[in-house]
C-alpha cells in the first residue's frame, strides 16, 4: 500500500515535470526534432535537468543497502547492444517523430488531450500487446523482462 502511494506520487511529479518542460506539447517536440527547420532546442534543457537531478540523486540512493519499501535495487540489465535494441529504437523514433508523443507525455495528456491522444494511447497499448503476443509465439518458454 505504501509502495503504491509512493509510486503514485512519483508518477505525479514526473507528469508535472513533463508538462512544465514542454514535453506534452507535440508541436514543441516536433520542433525539437526539426533540425533542418526552425529548431527549438528548449527540450534539451528538460533532458539536462532530468539527467543532472536523477544522475546525482541516484548516486546517493544506491549507496543504501536497499530501497525504503522494497527488497533490493534492480540488477543492471544486460549491456548488450543488438538488433532488437536498435530496431526497436528506430520504430519508436518514427512513431515519436510522426506524432510528437512518447509514452510518458501521451499518458499525461490522455485524460485531457482529446480524441486523438486517446486513439494514440489505445494504439500504443495495442502495439505493446502485439509485441507481447509476438514474443510469446516466438519463444514460448522464455519471458520478457519489462524495463
Amino acid at each position, binding site marked *: 500500500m505504501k*509502495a503504491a502511494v509512493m509510486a503514485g506520487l512519483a508518477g505525479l511529479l514526473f507528469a508535472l515535470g513533463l508538462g512544465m518542460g514542454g514535453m506534452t506539447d507535440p508541436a514543441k517536440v516536433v520542433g525539437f*526534432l526539426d533540425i533542418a*527547420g526552425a529548431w527549438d532546442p528548449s527540450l534539451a534543457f528538460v533532458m539536462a535537468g532530468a539527467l*543532472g537531478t536523477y544522475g546525482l540523486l541516484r548516486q546517493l540512493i544506491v549507496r543504501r543497502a536497499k530501497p525504503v519499501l522494497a527488497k533490493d535495487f534492480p540488477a543492471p540489465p544486460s549491456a548488450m547492444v543488438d538488433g532488437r*535494441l536498435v530496431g526497436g529504437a528506430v520504430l519508436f523514433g518514427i512513431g515519436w517523430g510522426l506524432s510528437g508523443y512518447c509514452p510518458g507525455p501521451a499518458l499525461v495528456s490522455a485524460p485531457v488531450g482529446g480524441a486523438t491522444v486517446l486513439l494514440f494511447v489505445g494504439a500504443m497499448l495495442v*502495439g505493446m500487446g502485439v509485441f507481447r503476443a509476438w514474443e510469446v509465439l516466438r519463444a514460448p518458454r522464455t519471458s520478457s523482462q519489462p524495463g
Partner: protein
Amino acid sequence: MNAFLLPLLGGVLLGAGASLLLLFNGRIAGISGITAGLLTPAKADTAWRAAFVGGLAVGGVVLALVRPESFGPPVISGMGATLAAGLLVGFGTRLGSGCTSGHGVCGLARGARRSLVATLTFMAAGALTVFVTRHVLGGVS
C-alpha cells in the same frame, strides 16, 4: 531566459519523480516498461505500476487546471497516421526495451552504453521522420 528555465525546472521535477521511485520502490522510471507490465495480468507488482500510471494521469488533470498551455494540439489528427504512430511507439519501445524515460533519462544517467545507443537511435529516427514529413512531404495530417 524563461524559455529555457522552465524546461530545466521541468527536467529537475521529472528527475525528482524518477529518484523517488528508485528510493522508495527500487524501480526504474521507464514509462513504456511500467505500462507494458500492466498488460500482463496477475502480476504481483500491478499495484505500484497502476499507481504510477495513475499518478501520470492525475498530473495531466492538475496541469490542465493550473497550466493549460502545457498541452498543445496534436500535430497529426488523421486516424490512420495516429494509429500508425501509436502502434510504432508501443511495439518499438517494447522491442527496444525502453523509451525516452527508461533509456533517455534513467539509462543515460547510469552511464549505460546500451541506453546511449538506443537514445541516439530514436532521436535520429525521430529527426529523420520529421525531416521527411515536414520538408520532403510538406506535412502529414
